[in-house]
C-alpha cells in the first residue's frame, strides 16, 4: 500500500493518484500493486440524474397553488355577480401570468431561453385577448411584431443561427416580407400596397445591403472601419427611401417621380462617390483618414 507524499494518508491498494490532492502514485520500477476492491460495486454513471431543485420546485408549486386559488376566486365572483360571460379574459390573463412565472423559474438562465419563452407567452396572451370571440385582428399585427423582435433580437443568438449564418439571414428576410404582407392583409383585407410599394422598397434594401456586404467582404484585410459601415448604411437607407417614395407616388398618383426623397437620393450618390473615391485613391484615403485601414 502506498502513502501520498503530500497529504501523508495511506491510499487504497492499486490507487493511481491520491483522491485528496491528485498527487500521482509513483511505485519503484517493476513493482505493481493489485487493485483493492472498489468502494461500490459499479463505476459512477457518466451523468447525474436530472430534476428540479427543492427551491425551484417550491416556487413552481406555490405559483400553481396561487393560480388555482385565483382562478377559483375570480370565477366564483364573476359567477355570483352574473358576469360569467366576461370570465374568459381575466381567467386567461391569470393563467398566462402563472405560465409566465413558471417559465421564469424553470427556464435555463440564458437570454435566448427566457426571451423566447416570454415572447411566445406574450404573443399567445395578445392572440387570446383579441380572439375570445374567435376573430383575430389587431393581435395578428402585435403578435407579428413580437415575432419580429424575436427574429432580430433573439434568433441571432441561437445556436442554429450561429451555425447557419446565411440561412438565418435568408429566414429573417423572408419573415420580414411575411410580416409586411400580413400587415397589409390585416389592415386592407387584401394585398394592396404590398406588391407595388413594399416589395420594391424591401428589394432595394436587400440588394443595397447585399452589395455593400459583398464589397466589404472582398476588401483586402479583415477590418472594416465604422465610418464605412455608417456611410454604407446611410447610402442603403437613402436609396431605399427614394425607391419607397417613388413607388408610393406611382401607387397613389400613377406618375413616376420623387416627391420628398430627391435630396436623399442626391446625398446617397455623393456619399457613394466619396466612398468609391476613397477606396480607389490612396492619396484621398490618407487625406480623410488618420491611418490606413484599407490595406
Amino acid at each position, binding site marked *: 500500500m502506498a502513502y501520498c507524499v503530500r497529504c501523508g494518508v495511506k491510499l487504497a491498494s492499486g490507487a493511481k493518484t491520491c*483522491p485528496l490532492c491528485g498527487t500521482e502514485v509513483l511505485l519503484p520500477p517493476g513493482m505493481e500493486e493489485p487493485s483493492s476492491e472498489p468502494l461500490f460495486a*459499479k463505476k459512477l454513471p457518466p451523468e447525474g440524474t436530472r430534476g428540479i431543485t427543492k427551491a425551484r420546485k417550491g416556487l413552481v*408549486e406555490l405559483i400553481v397553488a396561487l393560480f388555482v386559488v385565483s382562478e377559483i376566486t375570480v370565477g366564483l365572483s364573476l359567477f355570483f355577480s352574473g358576469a360569467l360571460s366576461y370570465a374568459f379574459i381575466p381567467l386567461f390573463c391569470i393563467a398566462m401570468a402563472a405560465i409566465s412565472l413558471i417559465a421564469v423559474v424553470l427556464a435555463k438562465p440564458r437570454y435566448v431561453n427566457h426571451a423566447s419563452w416570454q415572447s411566445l407567452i406574450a404573443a399567445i396572451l395578445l392572440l387570446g385577448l383579441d380572439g375570445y370571440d374567435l376573430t383575430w385582428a389587431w393581435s395578428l399585427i402585435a403578435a407579428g411584431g413580437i415575432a419580429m423582435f424575436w427574429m432580430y433580437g433573439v434568433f441571432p443568438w441561437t445556436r442554429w443561427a450561429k451555425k447557419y449564418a446565411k440561412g438565418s439571414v435568408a429566414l429573417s428576410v423572408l419573415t420580414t416580407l411575411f410580416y409586411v404582407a400580413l400587415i397589409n392583409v390585416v389592415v386592407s383585407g387584401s394585398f394592396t400596397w404590398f406588391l407595388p410599394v413594399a416589395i420594391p422598397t424591401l428589394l432595394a434594401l436587400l440588394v443595397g445591403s447585399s452589395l455593400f456586404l459583398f464589397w466589404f467582404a472582398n476588401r483586402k484585410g479583415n477590418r472594416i472601419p465604422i465610418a464605412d459601415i455608417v456611410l454604407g448604411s446611410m447610402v442603403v437607407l437613402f436609396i431605399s427611401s427614394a425607391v419607397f417614395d417613388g413607388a408610393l407616388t406611382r401607387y397613389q398618383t400613377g406618375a413616376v417621380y420623387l416627391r420628398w426623397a430627391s435630396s436623399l437620393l442626391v446625398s446617397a450618390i455623393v456619399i457613394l462617390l466619396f466612398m468609391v473615391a476613397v477606396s480607389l485613391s490612396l492619396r484621398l484615403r490618407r487625406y480623410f483618414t488618420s491611418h490606413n485601414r484599407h490595406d
Partner: protein
Amino acid sequence: MKRIQNFAPEGFIALDNSALIYPPTEAVFNANTFRVSMDFSFTIKKTILEQALHDLLYRCSYAKVRLHTGFFWYYLSPNDAEPVVHEEGSYPSGRFAFKENNGYLFKVLYSEHRIALECFHALTDGSGAMNYLKLLVERYCHHAGIQQVKFSSGLDYKVRPTKQEFSDPFQHLYDKHVPSYPTISKAYHRKGNGPFDDRVKVISATILTEQIKERAKERSLTIGEYLSSVYLYSLQQLQIEEIPNQKQRKPIRLSVPMNLRRIFGYDTMRNFTLFAVVGIEPALGFYEFDEIATEVHLQMVQAQSKKRLLSQIKRNVSGERIPIIRFAPTALKNPLFKLLSDFLGDDQYSGVISNLGYVALPSQLENQVVRCDFHLSPGLLNKISLSVIGYLDRIVVNFNSFYATDTSLERIFCTFLVEDGIQVEIATNRENTR
C-alpha cells in the same frame, strides 16, 4: 405533556414530527436518504437475503408501509407489495425511486460481500436503520446457516413488537408551557470550486479507534466532539481563503444529530433525533484548534441538556399543531415547506456531521465483518456531509460530496488528522483516482 398517541398500526399512520419535513422537501440535491452497510468475508446470496428481508418485515410490520400524499398531510399506510432486493449501484444515498422499490421507504441492497440498507428519512433515523440492518444480518446468517448470531443491542426477532417501537415520542414530550427554542442567524456556506452534480462522490477515511481516542482524550473530548472540531477547523481554513476580510466572515456552525433514545429512554424505531448546533464566530478572530475543541465540548454539553431539548421539541411540534398549518391543504403546505426548509434548516449551519456511534458486533461475526459504512445524502447548500461509524477497532469517516473535483475540505480534514499523529487510510468511488 399528556397526549393520546397518534398512530394506528393499520390503515392510516401519521408521520412522526421529525419526518414531516422530508417528503415535501425531497428533490434533486435533497434526497433525504442515508445508507448503512456491512461488508462480510463471505459471499452474499440474493435468495437468502430475500428470505431475511421477509423475516425483517414480519418482525417489523411498521416498516411495511408506503408513503401517500393526503389532502392535509403526507401519511403512511400498510404496503402489501413484495419487497425488492436490489443489486448495489455506483453511489450511495441517491434520490429514492419509490416506484422501483414497490413503494417501500427503505431499500435493501447487496453486492458480492455487502449488505446495505438505504432509507428515506421519513421512515426512521440512522439508529433505527442500523437496528433494521442488524436484524437483517441476523436473519441472513440464520438462513445461510453461517452461525446463530445476536447483536447485543437491537431488535429481537422472537419478541413481538412493542407499541413504543412505532410511537412518536415527540408528541409525548411536547409541553406547551415550555418556551420555544430561539432561531439563529445564517451561517457560512462554502462556495466550493468546480462543477457539481447529484451523484454522491464518497471519500472514505478509515482511522484506528485507539489513535483517535488517545488524541481526543488529551483534550478531554469524545471522539464525536474531536471530529466535529476538526471539521470546524477545516471549514475555518476554507473560509479564510474564500473571505479575506475578517469582519465579513459569517459564523461556522455544524449540525450534529443527537440520538435522543438514550437521553429520554425511548425505544422507538421511528425518527427520534434532534440536532445540536455547534459552531464558532470567525469574525472575532482566528480560532486555534484547541479553542475550537473547548467551544465544541461546551456547546455539545449544553445541547444535550434535557431542558434545551424539550424546548426544541416544543418549537418543532408546536409548528405542526398551529391550526392554520394543520388544516391547510398539502398543496399549499408543500411549497412553503420547500421554501422554508432552507431558511429554518440548512441556512443555519455550514455542514452536517452524523455520528452513528460504535456498532458492537457479536463475537461470532468479529472475524466475518470486514467493514461497516454509513452514508448520508448531502444537500444543495451544504454539498458535503460527514458520516461516522465505528466497528471493531476502526472508525470510518465518509465524506459524501456533490462536488465533481473539489476535495479541498476532505484534504484539509485528513491532513490535520495525519499531522495530529493519526493514521488515515483513504478509499473512494471517484473515478479519476483509479
